[in-house]
C-alpha cells in the first residue's frame, strides 16, 4: 500500500488529538461516533477515505458533484455489496463493488465514468480492514478509469449489519448507436461465454469458515470494459450483453429467454468449468451453472458474425477463454434446454430459492 508514507503523519496527528477517533489505522475500531456527522466523522473521512481515495470531487466536500458529460445519452445503475467474508481469494468487497457496477454499465454499451459509494459500517469494524477495502476500491477505480465522485458513510450498532456493506451507483456514457439489450436475442443467434464459470461463488464458499476446503483457485472478479468495448464494434450484429453474477449462467440465460421470448439451446460439454470448481461443486452437491461469477459475460450475436465476435472477445482482457456455448432457437420459447454430456436433454430452470447443498 502506498499509504505507508502517510502513516507516521497520521500517528503523530492522533497523538495530539484529544478525541482520537480512529486512533490508529492499523489497530483502531469503528465506533458509533464515527457516524455522528460530527468531528469523529470528519476525522474518519480525512484519515481514511480522503487520503486513500484522493478524488477531487470528494475533497471539495460539496453536497453533490457537478459533472459535465459530452453526450445526453447516459447509462445509470446501482448495486449493493454484502459479501462475506469481506476479503476472499482474488478480491474483496471494495474491488467487487467497483467491478460489479462498472460491468453493469458496460453491458449496456456504456463507457463507465463516475461512481458513487455508500458505506454502512458496523460498530467494531477494524479500521485496518476498512483501510484495505477502500484502498482496493481506489485501485479498481484506477484500473477501470472511473472516478468516485460522491460518497457517504453511516455507522450502525453492532449486529446492525455484517461488518461492512457498500452500495455503489454508476454513470456511463453511451456513445454507440446500437444499445445491446436482453430483449434483442433472435432465433439463430450464437451465444458466446467469455470464460470459465463458477470461480467467484466457489472461492467465496470455500473461504467461509464452516467449510473445510482448501482451494487454489481465485474469484474471477474483474472489469469487463475491454470486452464490451471490443464487442461494440459489431454494431447491430451485437444483440445482447449480460454479465453473469449471482444465480450464475443459468439465471442470466433464463432472463434473456424470457425478455426476448425465445428458446435457448446449450451444450453442456461446451461450457468451460475448471476441474477444481467442478470438484468442489460435486462435493457440496451444487450445480456450477448456478454458481456466481463476477468477471464473466454472455454475448449474443448474429451467427454470421460469430467468428468475428470470438476474435474480438479473445483479443480483450478477460476474454481469452471466449467460446460458443449454444444457440438461440424458435422452439421451447422462454426456456433454456441443455444437451447433456452424454447426449440427453434437460431444462435448465431458474432456481426456486437459494442453491442448497444436497444431503447425498
Amino acid at each position, binding site marked *: 500500500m502506498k499509504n505507508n508514507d502517510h502513516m507516521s503523519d497520521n500517528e503523530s496527528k492522533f497523538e495530539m488529538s484529544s478525541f482520537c477517533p480512529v486512533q490508529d489505522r492499523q489497530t483502531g475500531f469503528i465506533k458509533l461516533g464515527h457516524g455522528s456527522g460530527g468531528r469523529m466523522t470528519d476525522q474518519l473521512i480525512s484519515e481514511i477515505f480522503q487520503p486513500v481515495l484522493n478524488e477531487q470531487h470528494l475533497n471539495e466536500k460539496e453536497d453533490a458533484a457537478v459533472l459535465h458529460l459530452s453526450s445526453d445519452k447516459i447509462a445509470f445503475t446501482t448495486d449493493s455489496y454484502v459479501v462475506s467474508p469481506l476479503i476472499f481469494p482474488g478480491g474483496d468487497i471494495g474491488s467487487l463493488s467497483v467491478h460489479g457496477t462498472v460491468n453493469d454499465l458496460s453491458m449496456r454499451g456504456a463507457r463507465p465514468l463516475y461512481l458513487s459509494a455508500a458505506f454502512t459500517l458496523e460498530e467494531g469494524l477494524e479500521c485496518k480492514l476498512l483501510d484495505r477495502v477502500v484502498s482496493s476500491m481506489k485501485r479498481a477505480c484506477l484500473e477501470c478509469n472511473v472516478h468516485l465522485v460522491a460518497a457517504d458513510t453511516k455507522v450502525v450498532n453492532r449486529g446492525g449489519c455484517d461488518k461492512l456493506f457498500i452500495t455503489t451507483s454508476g454513470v456511463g456514457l453511451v456513445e454507440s448507436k446500437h444499445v445491446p439489450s436482453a430483449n434483442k436475442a433472435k432465433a439463430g443467434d450464437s451465444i458466446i461465454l467469455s470464460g470459465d464459470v463458477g470461480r467467484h461463488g466457489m472461492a467465496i464458499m470455500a473461504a467461509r469458515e464452516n467449510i473445510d476446503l482448501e482451494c487454489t483457485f481465485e474469484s474471477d472478479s474483474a472489469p469487463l470494459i475491454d470486452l464490451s468495448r471490443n464487442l461494440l464494434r459489431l454494431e447491430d450484429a451485437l444483440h445482447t450483453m449480460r454479465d453473469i453474477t449471482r444465480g450464475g449462467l443459468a439465471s442470466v440465460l433464463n432472463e434473456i429467454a424470457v425478455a426476448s421470448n425465445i428458446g435457448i439451446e446449450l451444450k453442456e460439454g461446451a461450457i468451460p468449468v475448471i476441474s477444481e470448481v467442478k470438484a468442489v461443486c460435486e462435493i457440496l452437491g451444487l450445480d456450477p451453472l448456478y454458481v456466481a461469477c463476477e468477471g464473466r459475460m454472455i454475448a449474443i450475436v448474429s451467427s454470421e458474425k460469430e467468428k468475428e465476435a470470438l476474435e474480438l472477445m479473445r483479443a480483450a482482457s478477460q476474454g481469452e477463454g471466449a467460446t460458443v456455448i449454444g444457440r438461440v432457437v424458435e422452439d421451447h420459447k422462454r426456456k433454456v434446454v441443455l444437451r447433456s454430456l*452424454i447426449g*440427453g*436433454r434437460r431444462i435448465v430452470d431458474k432456481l426456486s430459492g437459494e442453491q442448497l447443498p444436497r444431503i447425498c
Partner: protein
Amino acid sequence: MRFAAEFRSESRAAAIADAIKRCATKSWRIMEVCGGQTHTIMQYGLQDLLPEKIELLHGPGCPVCVTGLDLIDKAIAIAARSDVIFCSYGDMLRVPGSSQDLNDVKAAGADVRVVYSPLDCLRIARENREKKVVFLAIGFETTAPANAMAVKQAKQQQLENFFLLCSHVTVPPVIEGLLRSQDNVVQAFLGPGHVCSVMGFRQYERVSQTYKIPIVITGFEPLDILDGIYKAVVQLEESRYCVENQYKRVVERNGNAPAQKVMEEVFEVCDQNWRGLGVIAQSGLRLNESYRRYDAENVFHVKTQPVEIVSPCISAEVLKGLKKPHDCPAFGKECTPEHPLGATMVSSEGACAAYFRYRRFEDEK
C-alpha cells in the same frame, strides 16, 4: 486432474444404450431406488437414450422427501426455541412442515445452521455450552454411521448439550413393502449404491430370491446407471434373478464393517412413518437404550398435531412407480418446488421436483 469424466463419456453412453436396445425384446419397468440416481437420470436426460420399451420408475429413496411431516413439525418447534442451536443438512431447510419450514423460523430469529457433517455439531456444542445443540438426523443407511459416530463421540467427550432429532429410514423394508403390495409393477431394481457401500448387499440377495426379482446394485454416474439398466435388462430377458454388483469400485458384498458396528452400537430398529407411504414396520432406526439421553424428542417433549392434508397429490402412487408426475392434476400448477403438496415435489431428488425442474419441455411436445 481427471474428474469422473470417464463415467460421463458420450460415446460410451451411446454404446451401452445401443447394447440395451439390441438386448430388449419386451417392455420392462425398472425402478431406481435412490434419489441420487433419479437426479442423475434427470440431470443428464438419460431417458432420451433409452428405447421406449424401457420404462424407468423413480423409487422412494429420497431421504428428504420421505421424512414424515410430523418430524418436520417437531424440528421446526425445537428450532424455534431460544435455548437451541438447530443444525441440519442444507436441503432440509426448505422442506415444508404443515405450516412453515426451517427457513421461516430462521428468518424469524431462530439459530438454524447448515452443517456438512454431524461432527461439526460437536464443535458447536463445545463452543456453546449454554445452548442445546440439536442435529436433524435423517437419511438412509448412508448418513446413519456418521450420525451414530457423532452421538458416540458426544458420550465419550461427556458433551451434555448435544442431541439428535432422529428419523432414519432403511431401504430393504420399503422395497419389500413395494414388492408385497397388490399393485406392484416393478420388474427389476437398480439397488442403492451408497447404502450398499455401508451395508453390503446380502440383505438384497434374500429380497431377490424371495420375490424372484433382479436387483443390480448401481452407482450414480450416468454410465453407472446405463450399465445397471443393461445388466437388469439382460437378467429380465433371460428370466433370471439375482443380485449383481455394478458399483464394484465402491461396494463390497459385506459392506463397511466398522460403520455397521457403530450403527449397531447406537441405534435400534423401529417402525417408521414415511411421508407419502405411511408407517412401514421395522423400517427405521432410533437411538437405543444406552444412547436415549441424546434423543431430542425425549428432552423437548414436543407435541405435534397429526395433520390431515386434503389434496389431489398422487405422490404415494409416484413413489410406488404406479404413476408419473405429470399424471397428477396438481403437477406444476398448485404443486411446485416452492409450494410442494407432497413428498416427491420436496427435494430435487424427488421424482416430481426432478420432472418439474428438468423435463418440462415434454409438456409442449
